[in-house]
């Protein structure tokens, strides 16, 4: 692709600086929106562009904005910068490398929903990222892009960063709202949806960082231009995070609908150990694992579902021929056990037991029926949970076994060389590949 849209800082050095960003046309679209466009006109452009939420669910952004009840104020914009899905590091690069694009998109969007306050909820581990953002926000205030009566209009806008403290569940939008209100970050019952009753019981729109980073380009260049990228139902570009057994891990900005093979083979360079790709996790730990035979699937919201998974946050974790699927399943279940908020029993206890059983399977003390036991536990969690995290947790229990049952059985029967990889001898690892980006 010629020029990056979201990762434009890779094309223009210093784009994280206000003056460079302004020279590149930055903040002008926001000024034009506030002074020349009605909020509804902005909503209409985003709706027409078909932008879909990049936080995981892929819900059309303009449509979501349209759910706000008329004439109820104040309203809030809340940015979801909690990015904690294993294998996801795209929002971090946007916020660190191209902070003004993200902030301008947030500003335009907050104007569009007729709100005067945007909270950016960022995970505690991104403290250094938050510092970069705060500096960019300070510059935006100094330049008169944020504050009171902007550009001589009636419109005022404040932006605040709110640091989380280490909890994956706070990425779930209602848990995030509870956390922002000073409560434990546990999910709320839906409905009511946040658009009706959200932060401080006011109408609230919650959007992902990457979603909002798309807004300036869309408003600047128009919905028709945006729709020339990607597919009909999944328009635009997306950042794909590539990690695991891959030669060149990193973020790749591509049009939606690009085949997985292109990402893994052309851009990622294949596995680093030269083995064939065995399995792909297309959305971190949360979505079903797919076998390498799905490599020609197009990476858009529809095609990934047809292939038996979801696009989610587009965090592609790659496993090579020699990477143990049972070991990977254990890691993922351990993640969900650690991150279960404890509110409901099936999720809290189910992840606990599944981890125990998977540990047995992996360390060679298991028996063949243990494999089925993991599936049984998953079935007892599925459909019985308060929030989607419980459902997510069943993916690594069900689909790893579905596609690689014989590997699990070989592992318990000991026909696969048992290696307790927690205690493997540390080897001296050779530094080779140079840093690619950032």
């Amino acid at each position, binding site marked *: 692709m010629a020029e990056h849209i979201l990762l434009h800082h890779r094309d223009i050095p210093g784009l994280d600086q206000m003056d460079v960003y302004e020279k590149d046309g930055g903040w002008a679209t926001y000024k034009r929106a506030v002074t020349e466009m009605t909020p509804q006109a902005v909503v209409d452009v985003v709706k027409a562009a078909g932008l879909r939420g990049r936080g995981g669910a892929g819900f059309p952004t303009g449509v979501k904005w349209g759910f706000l009840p008329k004439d109820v104020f104040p309203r809030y914009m809340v940015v979801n910068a909690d990015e904690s899905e294993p294998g996801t590091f795209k929002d*971090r690069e946007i916020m660190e490398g191209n902070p003004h694009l993200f902030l301008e998109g947030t500003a335009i969007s907050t104007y569009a929903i007729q709100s005067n306050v945007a909270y950016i909820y960022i995970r505690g581990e991104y403290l250094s990222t938050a510092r970069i953002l705060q500096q960019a926000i300070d510059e935006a205030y100094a330049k008169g892009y944020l504050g009171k009566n902007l550009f001589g209009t009636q419109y005022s806008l404040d932006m605040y960063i709110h640091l989380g403290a280490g909890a994956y569940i706070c990425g779930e939008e209602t848990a995030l709202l509870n956390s922002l209100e000073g409560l434990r970050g546990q999910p709320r019952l839906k409905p009511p949806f946040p658009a009706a009753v959200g932060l401080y019981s006011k109408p609230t729109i919650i959007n992902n960082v990457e979603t909002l980073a798309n807004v300036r380009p869309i408003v600047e260049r128009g919905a028709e231009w945006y729709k020339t990228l990607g597919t009909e139902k999944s328009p635009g570009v997306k950042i794909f995070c590539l990690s*695991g*057994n891959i030669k060149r*891990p990193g973020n790749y900005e591509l049009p939606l609908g690009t085949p997985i093979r292109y990402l893994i083979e052309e851009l990622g360079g294949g596995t680093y150990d030269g083995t064939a790709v065995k399995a792909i996790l297309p959305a971190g730990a949360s979505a079903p694992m797919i076998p390498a035979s799905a490599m020609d699937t197009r990476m858009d919201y529809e095609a990934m579902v047809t292939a038996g998974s979801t696009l989610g946050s587009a965090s592609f974790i790659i496993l090579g021929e020699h990477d143990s699927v049972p070991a990977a399943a254990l890691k993922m279940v351990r993640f969900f056990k650690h991150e279960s908020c404890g509110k409901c029993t099936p999720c809290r206890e189910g992840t606990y037991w599944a981890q125990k059983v998977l540990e047995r399977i992996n360390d060679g003390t298991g028996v063949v029926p243990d494999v089925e036991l993991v599936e049984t536990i998953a079935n007892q969690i599925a459909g019985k949970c308060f929030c989607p995290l419980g459902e997510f947790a069943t993916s690594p229990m069900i689909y790893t076994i579905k596609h690689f049952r014989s590997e699990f059985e070989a592992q318990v029967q000991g026909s696969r060389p048992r290696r307790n990889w927690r205690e493997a001898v540390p080897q001296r690892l*050779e530094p080779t590949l140079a840093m690619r980006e950032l």
Partner: protein
Amino acid sequence: MLSETSRLLLTERLKNYPPDRKASAVIYACYLAQEDNPDHYISQQDVRDIADLLDMDATEVQGVIGFYSLLYEQPMGKYVIHYCNDLPCTLRGADQFLHVLEHKLGISHGETTPDGLFTLEEAMCLGACHRAPCMQINLEFQEFLTDDKVDRIIDMLRAGEPLRANMADAVQLLPQSPLA
């Protein structure tokens, strides 16, 4: 006890939220208390202070602290190391490398060095999987870890040098498949 500076910072921070929504600043207040305390944790006195300052019940504050993994109820080392061995990092050698770190520090994960300088904890994905192995020391990223780099970082901190992000040169690892 929250320091005077922290109280001022907290008062300033409360302006970000509606006046009757002081509880929104509870995580921030906890971070401040933790930084003020030489042992890096939130004491019972802090809990009561924070509750008073934010119009909350002490039990609510306690509940919040118990919920989040970056808020500590027990004394911690001066440098809290969160080492990532979640799946993507593990696929790049993180589990093996954990032993390098444990060996260097002379402790296992979940422990604090006898001199009170380092606490080592396992962490879930930190958002740096493309720069594995990685860790955070007091929330500053240390990425592309190698044996040498870990040696240098730990030695620098032991020698009393100030903590910075990515304290040694960046080099990326290309391990043999560690899950093989």
